[in-house]
């Protein structure tokens, strides 16, 4: 089942460049199939725009299977759309109705400047990772996988944190534009693993310092991030980050 002739009205944020003034522009798309993903629906629009000799809408995407974290659209006020636990690329048009008007905006945050239309610059996340989201390993041959035993429960929790794809929906959703959930996921992931121990004392402090320097807001425990995170990362990890930070700052050397 499923229709393939939905008609939609799209209100899309258009902005030529970082310094340019943006505004919403309204488009009609016909013949949208319920089986399309949200990005495929935008592909249909862009094909039409190109054949009409108009500038296509710029949006980011890469894997289109929910693992790379590149896609980033605020759809009707929801980062990654109204379905929870889903990236924009995995959102399907069957969740919309014929005749709907859909508002599409970029991530909004002072630390994520708009590059063009719906594309924002998320380099700030890379710099947070560079400041401490890594482990030191000896070069040479890969170690035997079973040489470092890790309890199943601990591995599970580390894995839950590690599923963060660095998309930035947490920042987009947060009224304070705080990137605490992202930072917490990275710190918490490595804090669970013996491999992360070498830098543990410094990691939380460095990453939080970088987080603050990038101009992200301060966490007020609103939990909008967890509600919108496509990987359903829990704010539990923020509490762990706070503990790690306290012990690395107050308890550290």
């Amino acid at each position, binding site marked *: 089942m499923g229709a393939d002739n939905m008609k939609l009205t799209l209100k899309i944020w258009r902005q030529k460049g970082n310094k340019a003034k943006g505004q919403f522009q309204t488009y009609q798309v016909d013949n949208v199939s319920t089986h399309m993903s949200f990005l495929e629906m935008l592909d249909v629009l862009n094909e039409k725009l190109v054949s009409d000799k108009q500038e296509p809408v710029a949006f980011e995407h890469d894997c289109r299977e929910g693992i790379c974290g590149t896609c980033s659209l*605020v759809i009707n006020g929801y980062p990654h759309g109204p379905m929870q636990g889903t990236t924009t690329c995995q959102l399907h048009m069957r969740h919309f109705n014929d005749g709907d008007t859909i508002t599409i905006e970029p991530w909004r945050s002072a630390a994520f400047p708009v590059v063009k239309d719906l594309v924002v610059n998320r380099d700030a996340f890379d710099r947070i990772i560079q400041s401490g989201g890594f482990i030191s390993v000896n070069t040479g041959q890969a170690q035997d996988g079973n040489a470092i035993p890790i309890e199943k429960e601990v591995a599970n929790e580390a894995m839950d944190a590690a599923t963060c794809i660095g998309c930035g929906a947490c920042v987009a959703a947060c009224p304070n534009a705080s990137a*605490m959930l992202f930072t917490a996921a990275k710190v918490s992931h490595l804090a669970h693993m013996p491999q992360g121990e070498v830098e543990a004392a410094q990691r939380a402090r460095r990453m939080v310092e970088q987080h603050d320097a990038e101009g992200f807001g*301060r966490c007020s425990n*609103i*939990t909008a991030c967890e*509600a919108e995170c496509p990987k359903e990362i829990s704010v539990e990890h923020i509490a762990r980050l706070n503990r790690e930070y306290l012990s690395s*700052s107050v308890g550290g050397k």
Partner: protein
Amino acid sequence: MNTWFVRFITSSIGKKVVMALTGLFLISFLIIHLIGNLQLLSGAGGQAFNEYAYFMTHNPLIKATSYGLYASILLHAIQGILLWIKNRQARGSQGYAVKANRTAGASKASYRMGAIGSIILIFLVIHLIQFWYQTHWGSQIETVDYEGWDQPINDLYALVAFTYTNIWMVVFYVVCMIFVGLHLWHGFESAFQTLGLSHEKWTPLVKIVGRVLSVALAAGFAIIPIWMYLNQ
């Protein structure tokens, strides 16, 4: 200078820890404050309340604690307003045209802590001028003689009772207590999360205690002006 301390206290988490610790201290004060104030309901010309007020303003230990309280209020309010401004800046100049406000557990009050806190701050200024300033330096307050006392003491009860003969004062106090309740509805559990005190077993209990406490404090304080107005 102790650089780790400066770095800690100026970091986002350090600032939040200050908010959480001062906030929890203020909550503990509110509990004591309410228990003491419930003596306003005991009638008898307010002797019990006036004697209690005398004790609270003359016991050296309580006086020392009260300086910590003034400092906490200032620190919490200034820090809160600074965080509020900072967070608005982080949002950027271009807002969303459409924004859904979905959360994973926190109440809607969490979105408005800065605004609710600012209302509480305005309330505090008025409240302190009305009673605290009068107790210490005011001219509106009378004194009263009680048996067993060798000097007359302040009749704070009479001042409070007089204030609550005005229905608008009663309304003002009751409305402000609703905001206190909303602030604590989110604030209590939030403070534990900020301090990293989250636990599978204990966090649900913290949430329940926070909600019971915020309703009990708001309702407890609100009953006093209502009761005094009705029994004047």
